[in-house]
């Protein structure tokens, strides 16, 4: 389906299906649900990074008027939760492992009362030594967080013989990189509502990416069958990965309160709580060694990296798998050795965040390319071009790069579109003529495996339910969710295009576990592909029934029926001798178009066709299911088919640095994305713009400061996410090389939009100051340190 010229809905800049209900504030986010008898929850959190819980006294809290109950570990039916490993208590019993570990849940008539009472729960702690660095945590002397020790997992890539090759390489470069946490800072905080149901069980509504994770998480913690837990996604105010695994905990707490009190119960985090206790982009330390020959052909890569998981596992091993598998970026290395250590510490919880381990390793590998180029005396862009992977070449996991991999187009388009050489010349010129200001330019590439890694492929199947009503309106349910990224809009387009329906009359309903089979998570930039394919599969079933009907109404063979532009029409396969007959049994809804010069056409409008289908009792509902082929994977060597398809991205950033204050202003960012096929240019650009600004925040101003595991800047006053004044000029370009297994050829965009931005921005800031950055974020302090070292930037 690479030819989109005949499509009516796909590829067009249609307005979002959910925009109108959001501009007047009617869209219902979880805290907007009003419900009879609602009670509110608040949490008592550990102030210690690591401590033994000696006793918990709840009497004072319980005595507060309006308090309905105070719950602690013994009240949780199955107090071992976790998405991958069940190593975490819903409410801590004997031990707390990070600042913010929950010890009690208070339920009260109002949120204020619940919060006040939660502060009155008296917990007696015996503080234990704590560890706040992943590498330190692996030492024998470090306090052990869990029975197995602090090493949660060790992942590997073994491809060729990197150590031997490095020993023989002409040039070897070695460097260590470190990146800090990033907070998602979705504008809507975490929250969930739980309503107890007659006959047992609970209905959850909440801010979330993954209703099926919430369903299984709540069922597990409360000891319920999953069919007793219905989960409906409320309109969700941003996720970016932060509402992947974490909402299961929020929902389980609300469900506990609801079942214990028999009342609908809601838990909504304060902003400070959200900063301290929900997941963050992982802090990582990465040691890279790269070898090449004198011509700049890469020979070997050797990586040792540490992923700080925090007190519990969460999704850390899954995030790390991406850092492990794509540690070499978009470049070909005949030899690779990667060790990725995922480590428990008493820091914040690491978790899913847009890019999922990839932005971290992109910063490292791109930093290595810059260093290697400097060592070789080569142009860094040339070095990249020379070693770029292309279709059929092996990745470090041994997989041959599958089709839809226009890596070279991406780099060439980026260089042209940004006029990279001129940008660099302009920066040099600027720097010659300015004393206290400097300009810099940075370029970074990345490669992202779209959809889930082989390790998670059991979750990869996704479903949809499509129902066509007699009036020609369409209802769609998908297993994926809408977080703001535009998933509902894109699946509405796919349904409208496939069915020949009117886009404006396709309604995508809130994602509900009652409507669709477990479709895995809305993550990994997989929703367009997975839910899109499922909607397409369901729509095709209905369409074939409608084609049969249209054929009988038009009196032509069904192979002559073409669908599009709101109608089913006869397009004779061979130029007809006769005008088509109109089926006698059809009531009125057949119109005969005036024949064009050569071909006669008869058509039935979609709503009329649907009405006739209804009268004839045709089944106009279908469920669709999409699951990609299996991906073999050997986790001891990290060899196999890691991902079904890859997305290539390039960014160029231009910055201006103020040498006096150390501030970096991002002036321009260019983005080139390989997206398979553009389905909706507006939502696509929206993703790219948002990814750029969020990536830039991590590169420069978003610096989460921890003191022994306590976040010192848990709010927007000191944790600076970019505002309208910070945004750069942005330029987004799309390279289209259809993905054969994607709906209409499309791939994902959610995460690629961010991945190489932080690196491009940091490299640009470094370029302005004559430095190569190896820490993120590049704060004003970093810049001032650079310039001081450098004698005022000279």
């Amino acid at each position, binding site marked *: 389906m690479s030819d989109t010229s005949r499509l009516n809905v796909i590829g067009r*800049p249609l*307005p*979002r299906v*959910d*925009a*109108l*209900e*959001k*501009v*007047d*504030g*009617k*869209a*219902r*986010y979880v*805290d*907007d649900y*009003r419900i009879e008898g609602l009670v509110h929850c608040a949490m008592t959190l550990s102030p210690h990074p690591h401590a033994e819980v000696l006793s918990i006294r709840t009497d004072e809290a319980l005595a507060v008027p309006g308090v309905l109950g105070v719950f602690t570990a013994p009240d949780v039916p199955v107090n071992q939760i976790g998405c991958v490993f069940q190593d975490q208590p819903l409410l801590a019993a004997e031990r707390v492992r990070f600042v913010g570990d929950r010890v009690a849940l208070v339920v009260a008539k109002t949120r204020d009362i619940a919060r006040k009472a939660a502060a009155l729960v008296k917990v007696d702690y015996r503080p234990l030594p704590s560890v706040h660095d992943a590498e330190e945590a692996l030492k024998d002397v470090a306090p052990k967080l869990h029975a197995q020790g602090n090493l949660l997992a060790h992942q590997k890539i073994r491809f060729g013989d990197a150590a031997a090759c490095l020993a023989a390489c002409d040039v070897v470069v070695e460097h260590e990189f470190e990146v800090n946490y990033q907070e*998602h*800072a*979705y*504008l*809507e*905080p975490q929250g969930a509502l739980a309503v107890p149901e007659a006959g047992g069980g609970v209905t959850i509504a909440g801010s979330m990416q993954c209703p099926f994770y919430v369903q299984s998480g709540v069922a597990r913690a409360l000891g319920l069958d999953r069919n007793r837990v219905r989960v409906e996604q409320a*309109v*969700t*105010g*941003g*996720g*970016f990965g932060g509402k992947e695994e974490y909402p299961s905990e929020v929902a389980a707490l609300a469900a506990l309160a609801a079942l214990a009190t028999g009342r609908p119960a809601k838990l909504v985090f*304060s*902003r400070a709580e959200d900063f301290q206790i929900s997941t963050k982009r992982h802090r990582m330390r990465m040691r890279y060694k790269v070898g090449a020959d004198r011509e700049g052909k890469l020979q070997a890569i050797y990586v040792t990296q540490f992923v700080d998981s925090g007190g519990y596992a969460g999704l850390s091993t899954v995030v790390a798998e991406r850092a492990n598998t794509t540690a070499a970026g978009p470049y070909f290395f005949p030899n690779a050795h990667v060790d990725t250590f995922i480590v428990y510490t008493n820091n914040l919880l690491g978790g899913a965040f847009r890019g999922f381990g990839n932005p971290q390793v992109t910063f490292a590998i791109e930093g290595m390319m810059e260093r290697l180029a400097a060592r070789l005396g080569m142009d860094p862009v040339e070095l990249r071009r020379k070693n770029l992977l292309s279709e059929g070449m092996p990745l470090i996991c041994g997989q041959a790069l599958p089709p839809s991999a226009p890596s070279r187009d991406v780099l060439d388009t980026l260089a042209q579109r940004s006029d990279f050489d001129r940008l660099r010349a302009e920066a040099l010129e600027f720097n010659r003529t300015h004393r206290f200001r400097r300009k810099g330019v940075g370029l970074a590439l990345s490669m992202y495996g779209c959809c889930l890694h082989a390790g998670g492929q059991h979750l990869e199947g996704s479903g949809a339910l499509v129902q066509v009503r007699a009036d020609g309106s369409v209802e769609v349910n998908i297993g994926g969710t809408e*977080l*703001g*990224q*535009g998933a509902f809009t894109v699946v509405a387009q796919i349904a409208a295009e496939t069915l020949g329906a009117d886009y404006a009359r396709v309604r995508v309903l809130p994602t509900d576990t009652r409507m669709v089979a477990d479709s895995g998570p809305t993550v990994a930039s997989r929703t367009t592909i997975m839910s899109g394919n499922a909607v397409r599969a369901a729509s095709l079933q209905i369409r074939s029934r409608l084609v049969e009907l249209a054929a009988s109404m038009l009196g032509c063979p069904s192979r002559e029926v073409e669908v599009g532009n709101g109608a089913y029409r006869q397009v004779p396969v061979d130029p007809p001798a006769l005008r088509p007959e109109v089926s006698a049994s059809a009531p009125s809804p057949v119109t005969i178009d005036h024949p064009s010069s050569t071909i006669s056409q008869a058509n039935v409008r979609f709503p009329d066709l649907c009405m006739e289908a209804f009268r004839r009792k045709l089944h106009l509902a279908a469920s669709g299911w999409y699951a990609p082929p299996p991906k073999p994977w050997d986790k001891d060597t990290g060899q196999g088919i890691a991902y079904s398809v890859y997305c290539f991205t390039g960014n160029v950033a231009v910055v201006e640095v103020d040498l006096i204050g150390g501030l970096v202003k991002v002036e321009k960012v260019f983005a080139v994305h390989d997206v398979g096929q553009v389905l909706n240019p*507006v*939502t696509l*650009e*929206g993703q*790219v*713009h*948002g*990814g*750029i*600004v*969020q990536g830039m925040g991590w590169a420069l101003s978003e610096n989460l400061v921890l003191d022994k595991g306590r976040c010192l800047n848990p*709010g*927007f*006053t000191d944790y600076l*996410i970019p*505002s*309208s*004044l910070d*945004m750069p000029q*942005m330029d987004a370009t799309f390279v289209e090389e259809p993905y054969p297994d994607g709906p209409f050829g499309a791939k994902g965009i959610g995460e690629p939009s961010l991945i190489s931005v932080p690196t491009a921005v940091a490299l640009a800031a470094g370029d302005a100051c004559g430095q190569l950055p190896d820490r993120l974020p590049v704060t004003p302090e970093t810049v001032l340190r650079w310039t001081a070292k450098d004698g005022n930037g000279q």
Partner: protein
Amino acid sequence: MVNVTLTLNGEKTACTVLPDEKLLDTLRRLGRTDVKKGCGEGTCGSCSVLLNGRLVASCIVFTAAADGGEILTAAGLGTADNPHPIQSSFVKAGAVQCGFCTPGMVLAAKALLDVVPEPDVQQIKLALDGNLCRCTGYVKIIDAVQSAARTLAGKDEVPHA
């Protein structure tokens, strides 16, 4: 307790509030859930309303201090059936993603356009500086404000949602 009278989207409303109650909490308690709470600390702008025509973060305004005031929220600006040109422009420009910042954003835009009918990009950026958006990168929001300005100045046909 303090007795307060507010004119909410044109409707006179009397209520009794605690002396330290914040306007955001009062509004939401009264069912005006189109006013969102992103931080409760005056730092994100999602709770923006117009109080006597001025843009305020309702989470840091005491309700008692707003006594007698006129308040406009996003739902008062226009509705899905009858959107204000600013709201239509937001839909058309693709300025809405998750939508959580949107009710505050459209009011920030209104506050600007009431005073500066034809703002340049820098003026728009300055006016929106207190309203954070984590989704859009602001580009299409700025486009939307510009196009709304054109519409309101009669220089453009009314955009259709």
